[in-house]
């Protein structure tokens, strides 16, 4: 009874106590109790779940390190995850919830390029900023650029520019044959690389497009042999690459031919199935776990310790995003949208991949690009870095006119 009365009086007095205590705490520490919230809308189920998993791991590892070191401006960082299902209609709904109900300060994680574009527009309408760490469609930072969208990963154009640079140096004036999957993305990837390669002196020996999900590629091998190329470029993905490369191996076409391709052609997911046929494949990417810098080796070791697997491109780019966000918030002195946008534009920050700079004109990060060659002897595989292309050489002109 007396205990109840005591409690009741404390409750009754608590607003008064708070008022009395208010002058004692400064505004800064009052804010410190309030964490900085970052919404993450990323595929946690379905086909793209492995990518979403890397995004999640990269973000969580970086957040853990930042929080252990005292957070950002003394505030802890909190991540709120929502499943994007790789569907823009779901992504916008989840992003709206994070913006309006959870009041997140920043949002990231979208994988599907359509999701990034749609969520970017939503961010504009809600007066918040987003960043993608995965989507590589050029449109996001060219003709469909948005003042509220930043991209910290390399876009498709940077990847093909890096590969073309390496090709021009390693195999000058190469005769290149192009083999792509017959759908819009496959064709535009081939067209982009072809343009980049011809600019650096490569010649075209011909091109062919096979239907998506082809079982048998041998019907194209006659044309391929007749064209006598020294290099084959392909933009197939997933199981299509498995069938293409193993069938080429069976027909003996891999001898005296350098195979290059898009960054999604051979990945950690399908390399096991390709096996020895993947040996020698070269691609242009923004990251490899084999990068021999101390920052990267420390990152890979920490990542392996935490999750028992190596980080890939998506994990590394997502890890780097938290560093970008931290640097920008500290520069802006808070999370106000306009101040944060200004702080992010032109910002340079360090990542396991080396230093990155956010170009102010189109919100595309500039970074060194790498030509990576796969070494596969049948039992183990490595992604060896065989060439580095400086960021400025791979970035291309600023094509964003909206801001």
């Amino acid at each position, binding site marked *: 009874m007396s205990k109840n009365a005591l409690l009741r009086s404390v409750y009754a007095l608590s607003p008064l106590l708070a008022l009395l205590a208010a002058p004692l705490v400064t505004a800064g520490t009052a804010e410190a109790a309030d964490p900085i919230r970052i919404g993450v809308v990323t595929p946690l189920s379905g086909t793209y779940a492995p990518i979403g998993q890397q995004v999640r791991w990269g973000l969580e590892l970086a957040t853990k390190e930042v929080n252990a070191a005292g957070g950002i401006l003394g505030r802890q960082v909190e991540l709120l995850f929502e499943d994007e299902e790789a569907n823009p209609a779901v992504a916008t709904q989840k992003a709206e*919830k994070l913006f309006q109900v959870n009041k997140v300060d920043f949002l990231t994680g979208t994988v599907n390029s359509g999701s990034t574009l*749609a969520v970017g527009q939503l961010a504009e309408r809600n007066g918040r900023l987003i960043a993608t760490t995965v989507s590589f469609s050029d449109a996001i930072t060219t003709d*469909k650029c948005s003042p509220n969208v930043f991209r910290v990963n390399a876009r498709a154009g940077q990847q093909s520019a890096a590969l073309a640079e390496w090709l021009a140096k390693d195999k000058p004036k190469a005769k290149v044959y192009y083999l792509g999957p017959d*759908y819009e993305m496959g064709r535009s990837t081939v067209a982009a690389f072809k343009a980049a390669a011809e600019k650096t002196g490569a010649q075209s020996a011909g091109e062919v497009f096979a239907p998506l999900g082809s079982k048998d590629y041998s019907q194209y091998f006659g044309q391929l042999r007749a064209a006598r190329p020294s290099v084959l470029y392909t933009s197939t993905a997933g199981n299509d690459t498995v069938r293409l490369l193993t069938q080429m191996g069976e027909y003996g076409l891999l001898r005296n031919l350098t195979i290059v391709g898009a960054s999604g052609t051979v990945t950690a997911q399908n390399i096991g199935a390709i096996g020895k046929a993947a040996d020698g494949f070269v691609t242009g990417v923004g990251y490899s776990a084999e990068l021999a810098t101390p920052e990267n080796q420390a990152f890979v070791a920490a990542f392996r310790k935490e999750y028992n697997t190596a980080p890939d491109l998506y994990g590394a780019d997502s890890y780097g995003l938290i560093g970008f966000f931290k640097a920008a918030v500290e520069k802006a002195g808070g999370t106000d949208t306009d101040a944060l946008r200004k702080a992010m534009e032109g910002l340079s920050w360090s990542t396991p991949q080396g230093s990155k700079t956010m170009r102010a004109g189109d919100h595309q990060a500039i970074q060194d690009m790498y030509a990576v060659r796969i070494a596969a002897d049948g039992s183990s595989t490595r992604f060896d870095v065989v060439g580095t292309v400086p960021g400025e050489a791979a970035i291309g002109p600023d094509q964003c006119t909206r801001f």
Partner: protein
Amino acid sequence: MPEATLRTVSDPGRAGPASRSSRLAPVHWLALIFLAAALGFAAVAWATGNGFYLRLATEALIFAGLAMSVDLLLGYTGLLSLGQALYFGLGAYVSALVLRDVAPSFWLAMAAALLAGGVAGLIGGVIANRVKGVYFALITFGLAQVAAKTVYNTRALGASDGLIGIPQIQVGFGPFSLDTADPLSFFLLVLGLTVVAYAGLSYLMDAPFGRTLAAIRANEKRVPFLGFNAWRYKLAVYVLAACVAALAGALYPMLRGFVSPELMFFETSGNAVITVIVGGVGTLVGPVVGSLLLTALRSVVGSWTEHHLIVVGVIFMLSVIFLRKGLVGALLARLSRRGEQGRATP
């Protein structure tokens, strides 16, 4: 299916022709209760300044329109369409293109979507109605896949990225106008349109047209003996369903400001069928209730676990096993049983 035949004669949920003039059927009472609940929800959400939930409910009503169009085919005519998202997506793309490139006019966008839905429905209907049963389901599925892949690979339509930059617009009603950017106004507009669609379609389903559809569902072979051309009715209801789906789709870009090929994918069609079955087949109000329920569930469970699809799947299976006529069907059965008891004891 003797049960289905019986149901056409004395449908427990629906008023017979004799009582139609005197009393409102129980299913319409349910619809009214639902409408009152929706208005109550809007008032609470508005008072607490909760735009997100209003917009989520608006999206649920838009997808309810798609589910209603599935119900017209599945519940009233016995045709399972696995590709209704084709017309929903078509309406969405047409509306998006009109709003972005022609004029930011609500009525123009709706009219264009209706026209496109009607024409596409006529073409799709002529193709799909050549066959019956499972083949009909497969053809509708195939048509939607062809359309979705075409959009997915067409650069002019944004390909896999979809179209963004659809403006928020003013909807004019003579001297009045409302803003689609305002969550409450747009919710009330979509709610109003849903009520109009429900009222209009229920009237049509109680009219001779709907009775003929019920006869086709019960026993298509007997319909010609009554002097009706079953094919013509099936085509008509297919076009009607396509128009309803296209109109619902036309509202989507007004709410979200973008369209993407995923709107035409099987996932969207499949969800509409699940919505109808969980809500109540052949009730029209069931799809609306089902859509609101499933949308709310996905949003809540989705934040809580990434295994939300399992939860929805289990609910679907439970409702198929235990609520054969869906939520609304089960409610109606209970209501009519109570009504009969009331009448038996004066």
